[in-house]
C-alpha cells in the first residue's frame, strides 16, 4: 500500500496549498500523520525526486507540485 500512500502525499502536495506550505517549512512535522515507511518518509524530507519516483511516486505528480516540481 505504500505506493498508494506516497502518491496520496504527492497529490496532496499538488492540490492542497496549506499542506504544501506546512511541508515546505517543516517536512517531517507535516508528514507526521502519513502512513509512510521510513525510507519513503526520508525521501520526502530530503525531497529526493529520483528516490520518490523509484518508490512508486508518479512522475507526473513529482513534476507538477507548485514550487517544488522539477522540470
Amino acid at each position, binding site marked *: 500500500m505504500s505506493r498508494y500512500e506516497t*502518491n496520496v502525499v504527492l*497529490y496532496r502536495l499538488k492540490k492542497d496549498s496549506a499542506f504544501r506550505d506546512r511541508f515546505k517549512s517543516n517536512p517531517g512535522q507535516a508528514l507526521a500523520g502519513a502512513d509512510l515507511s521510513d525510507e519513503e518518509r526520508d525521501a520526502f524530507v530530503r525531497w529526493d525526486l529520483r528516490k520518490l*519516483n523509484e518508490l512508486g511516486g508518479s512522475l507526473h505528480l513529482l513534476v507538477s507540485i507548485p514550487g517544488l516540481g522539477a522540470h
Partner: protein
Amino acid sequence: MGKIVYAAAMSHVLHPDYYGQNVGPHGRRMVEELIAVVRAMGRTLTSAAPDALVVVADDHLNVFSFDAVPALCVRVGRSVNRMIQADAIEFDRALDGLPERYPVHEDLANSILETGVQAGFDFAASWSAPLDHAFLSPVSTLYGDRPVAPLVPFWVNCFVAPQPTAQRCFAAGRHIARVVAEGPWNVAVIATGGLSHFPELSLARIGQSDPAFDRRILKLMEAGDSEPLTALTAKELHESGSHELLNWMVLLGAVSPARARVRFFGEMGRIDLAALEWDVA
C-alpha cells in the same frame, strides 16, 4: 447515418512560453511552427462542420487521483468546465483566459458510454471531471475565436500502471466508429499528446525523446498499418516515453484503415512534436 468527418492527432502543450523557458529559443520556435500548422488544421476541422468533437486525451493526475484511476472514461453531462488550478504549473497556464465552460454533446457521449458497456467495454463515466491542457490546449488552438463544437471528452489512463493495452484502446476506437456510423451525427475525432517524452527519472536517458521510435510509428500511420501499433507493449511505450500514444490508438481504431498525413514533425531533443490528419472524407 453519421460519419467521421475529420480526424487528427497532435501534441498537447501548444504553449510557446513553456518551451521557451524549459527548452530554449529553438523549443519556442518549433512549437510556434506547430501552432501555425494546428491553426490551419482547425480551418479544415471547422469547414467539416462537425456536430460533435470527440477529444481523446489523458489525465496528468490533475483530475483523477490514486483513489480511483479509470482505464477509459467518458465524460457525460451537459457541459464541462476548464480546470482551474491555483498555482498551475507552466503547461497548464496555456488554459489561462480560455472560456470556463464548454458544451458536451450529451447524446453522443451517452451513446458511446451505454452501448460501450453493453458491448463489454467497462468504461467509467464522469459527470464532473474538468478539462486540463491535454484537451483544451489543442481544442483552443484548433478553434481560435470560433465557437467550439459540443465535446465528448474521453480519457485514457496513459500513466498509472497498469494501463489499458494498445489493442484495447484501438478496440475502444472501433467502438466509437460504430456508434458514429449508427447515429445521425457528423463527428470529428482528435487524439492528443506525445510524441515520445518524459521517460522516468530513474532511466539513464532522462528527459530525452526517442526520435527513431517516433519516426517508425509515424511511417506506420502514414501506411495505415495499425497492426504493429496495436502490438506495442506497455514496456515499449514506457521505455520510449510514448505513454500518450494510447490516446492515438483510440483514434486509430476510430479511423482505421485510413492513412495519416504528417502535417508536422519536429525533434526537439526533449520531446518530439507532431500533428497528423487522417484521410477520412
